[in-house]
């Protein structure tokens, strides 16, 4: 009888590290660096060589970048299933994996489905002849943005100074999306906060409270009050530049956050005000908000407790988003944070991430139009988020009507992330979405700060180029200027929701 192992469908990775053994000197760094135990060192004769088990590689590319000889590259090993457009490899793989675990399949970052990405179907205009483009290298090109409740006319303002000071000034219309202490580590948060402060932007705490090391950066921090109320205390309500009530998240509309007990280490337990190693599970709804009136109460409560700081409400983009947004603005929110279908997450059920919510492009266009129709657009700023990949996406969002744009995943990328989507594992090999001390140590705060600064500066230059080539020197004239945009290959229905004309018109 042949001896064979019981097969375990699902335990196979699509990617694997391939080693050039001629170049390898057997130093073993790759095996140390791989936090998923994909690589082990084996003895071959006198030498030690790396070997891959081809079960857990997620193409994070950590080994490739840390190999001092450049002897590793990641290769794909696609599942060559019998062709089937219904049961494609992704579906089959997921069923296999779940059959192995019996659990809700978790994933990290934003939806990787092929649901249409409207940014890529929208193109910018440019000046030719009659209106000169402006050269940002030589002329003023201003991106200063103020967030908060404005007025519809000057006469409404009694005290100009109070009004001006009630708004939040950004040097460019960019903020750092909420990523909680716990889902990411303190090193990453410190780097974000430093860049936000230095560059005149905002960073958001996410739902995990604010660690005491971050207090020097409170003047540019938006502190979150989520359904779990982690870290929320009277002192907390005194510390922020602004507050964010989190109702929903693009990657998991309708459900709450989940930080596994394994990740609840000392600093996190202290900051979240929960016992060590206990699961931090935030409820799906806020249990004191069952209606729009309740939201108004919470907004007012936070305002009173915080000395009338601006309050932002974060919602996931869902079908009826325009009406919901209108209610939120009327309930007194100073900012509305719209998180779209492709928004990232540190841990989310993939079935929710991939099947719930709508793209932020459509939600943003619908909300901006609705608030204008109702003549309340000035009462709240809109921050758009969810799958913003580059400066062009940012500027398209601004032209659709956003006051500012939030980026999250792009910031992880700045620090080495290769979008392997395993943030939920707590084993991030780049040391970002992990609190394992050995892994967190990999993220040097100064280095991360520099990388993020570079990304922001690079985008800023590009945003100025896009303004300049449209003959616009102030971001205010770009905001809501949908005539700058044209759609390609979109249906009339899509164009009408986006409020954009087709190319050639």
């Amino acid at each position, binding site marked *: 009888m042949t001896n064979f192992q019981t097969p375990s469908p699902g335990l196979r990775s699509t990617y694997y590290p391939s080693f050039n053994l001629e170049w390898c000197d057997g130093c073993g760094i790759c095996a140390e660096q791989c936090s998923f135990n994909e690589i082990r060192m084996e003895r071959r004769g006198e030498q030690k060589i790396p070997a891959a088990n081809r079960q857990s590689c997620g193409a994070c590319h950590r080994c490739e970048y840390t190999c001092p000889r450049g002897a590793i590259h990641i290769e794909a090993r696609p599942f060559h299933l019998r062709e089937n457009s219904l049961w494609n490899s992704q579906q089959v793989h997921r069923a296999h994996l779940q059959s192995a675990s019996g659990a809700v399949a978790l994933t990290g970052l934003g939806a990787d489905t092929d649901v249409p990405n409207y940014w890529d179907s929208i193109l910018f205009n440019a000046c030719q002849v009659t*209106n*000169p483009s402006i050269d940002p290298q030589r002329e003023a090109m*201003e991106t200063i943005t103020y967030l908060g409740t404005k007025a519809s006319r*000057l*006469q409404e303002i009694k005290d100009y100074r109070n009004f001006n000071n009630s708004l939040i000034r950004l040097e460019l219309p960019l903020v750092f999306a909420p990523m909680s202490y716990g889902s990411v580590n303190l090193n990453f948060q410190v780097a974000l906060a430093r860049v936000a402060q230095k560059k005149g932007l905002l960073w958001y705490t996410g739902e995990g409270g604010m660690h005491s090391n971050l207090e020097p950066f409170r003047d540019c921090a938006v502190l979150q009050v989520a359904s779990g109320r982690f870290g929320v205390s009277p002192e907390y309500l005194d510390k922020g530049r602004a507050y964010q009530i989190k109702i929903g998240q693009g990657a998991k509309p309708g459900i709450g956050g989940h930080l596994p007990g394994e990740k609840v280490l000392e600093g996190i337990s202290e900051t979240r005000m929960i016992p060590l190693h206990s699961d931090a599970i935030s409820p799906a709804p806020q249990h004191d908000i069952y209606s729009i009136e309740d939201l108004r109460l919470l907004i007012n409560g936070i305002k009173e407790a915080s000395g009338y700081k601006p309050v932002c409400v974060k919602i996931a983009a869902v079908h009826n988003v325009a009406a919901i947004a209108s209610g939120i603005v009327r309930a007194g929110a100073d900012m509305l944070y719209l998180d779209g279908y492709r928004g990232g997450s540190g841990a989310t059920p993939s079935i929710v991430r991939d099947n719930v919510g709508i793209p932020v492009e459509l939600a943003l266009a619908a909300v901006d139009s609705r608030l204008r129709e109702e003549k309340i657009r000035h009462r709240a700023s809109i921050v758009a988020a969810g799958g913003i990949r580059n400066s062009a996406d940012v500027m398209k969002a601004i032209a659709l009507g956003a006051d500012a744009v939030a980026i999250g995943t792009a910031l992880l990328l700045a620090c080495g992330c290769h979008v392997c989507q395993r943030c939920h594992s707590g084993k991030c090999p780049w040391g970002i979405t992990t609190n394992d001390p050995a892994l967190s140590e990999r993220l040097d705060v100064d280095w991360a700060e520099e990388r993020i600064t570079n990304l922001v500066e690079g985008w800023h230059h590009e945003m100025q180029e896009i303004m300049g080539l449209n003959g*616009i020197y102030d971001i205010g*004239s770009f905001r809501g*200027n949908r*005539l700058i945009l044209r759609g390609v290959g979109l249906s009339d229905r899509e164009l009408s929701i986006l409020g954009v004309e087709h190319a050639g018109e």
Partner: protein
Amino acid sequence: MCGIAGLINSKGKREHGNRIKRAIMLQNERGNGLGAGFAVYGAYPEYRDQYALHVMAKDSKGLKLVEEFLHRDFNIIHGQDIPVWNFKINDHPFFRIFFVDPPAPGEKGREDRFTDDDYTLDRVMEVNARVEGVFIYSSGKDIGVFKGVGTPGDIYDFFRLDDYSGHTWLAHNRFPTNTPGWWGGAHPFNLLSYSIVHNGEISSYGTNVRYLESFGYRCTMQTDSEVVAYLLDLLIRKHGLPVEDAATVLAPPYWTSVEQEEEGDKKEKLLALKLIYESAMLNGPFAVLAAFDRGMFTLTDNTKLRPMTVGQRGDYSYFASEISALYEMEEELEQVYTPRAGEPCIITFDQQDNQADPIKTAAH
């Protein structure tokens, strides 16, 4: 590229259009025959208390429709065809003028909350957006706008402007670029007492239009310049801003200049204006000459990519794209001034005490 000319007598002395015609025709190179126009303030002394609605319609059916519409919504005091001389231009729309009074509040469906101006504006916008092929392109009291497709000389003759006189004249010579050359798209653009002529291109148009729409304005002329007239009506009439502040809103100083301002009330107000009226700001190269019931002012973009010069002698102020055109209007100017980039130049007109203000500038 477009040509602009304007003159104002700050004591309200009316004159024929000879000088303005010469000044705009001197700048023929700045146009291409696809648009020209004039605005005359003080054009209809016999009906000075009525809104003078100038209607352009592509056919006589349109004229009939609009007359029915106006009968329903206004009290028409007098209506007649606008006299034209169609010798040189024979392909043109139909023109008619109606001198109307708005109904008393509560009558003809007029809501109490509307002022006369608000009501008239709302009805004008309604006609322009709803009645096909019909446009009310001039709606002020004692103000006439005459414009169309042709050279300035042709349009002047077509509308027989020798028969009109006014204390304030605007003239425009158009070189249409990004928008079609059609009769409604020629300058000046007028709304109630505000008329503007514009040289340039408004890159913020998309933002401005959506902003205006949220206040009930509807942009129907297919030309970026119309937003300037509507913005002036919104800022000055509806929001009660002084002309200086309205000018600041349209061409605000750069943020870097705001930061250099001395701390104090002036800076805080400037900041508040910039923040509240961000969407009303004009971007792109522009020189605008605007007339309103109390005077005239110019405005250019922050880098002054379009020219504007001002001259003065006695009670007269003159405006033009080119200095030569100023001298065409007045050979012996006492003062010639070229406003700096973004600097408005405001001439106010005070009928009460008949005092002429000297050239007043509000430098940022």
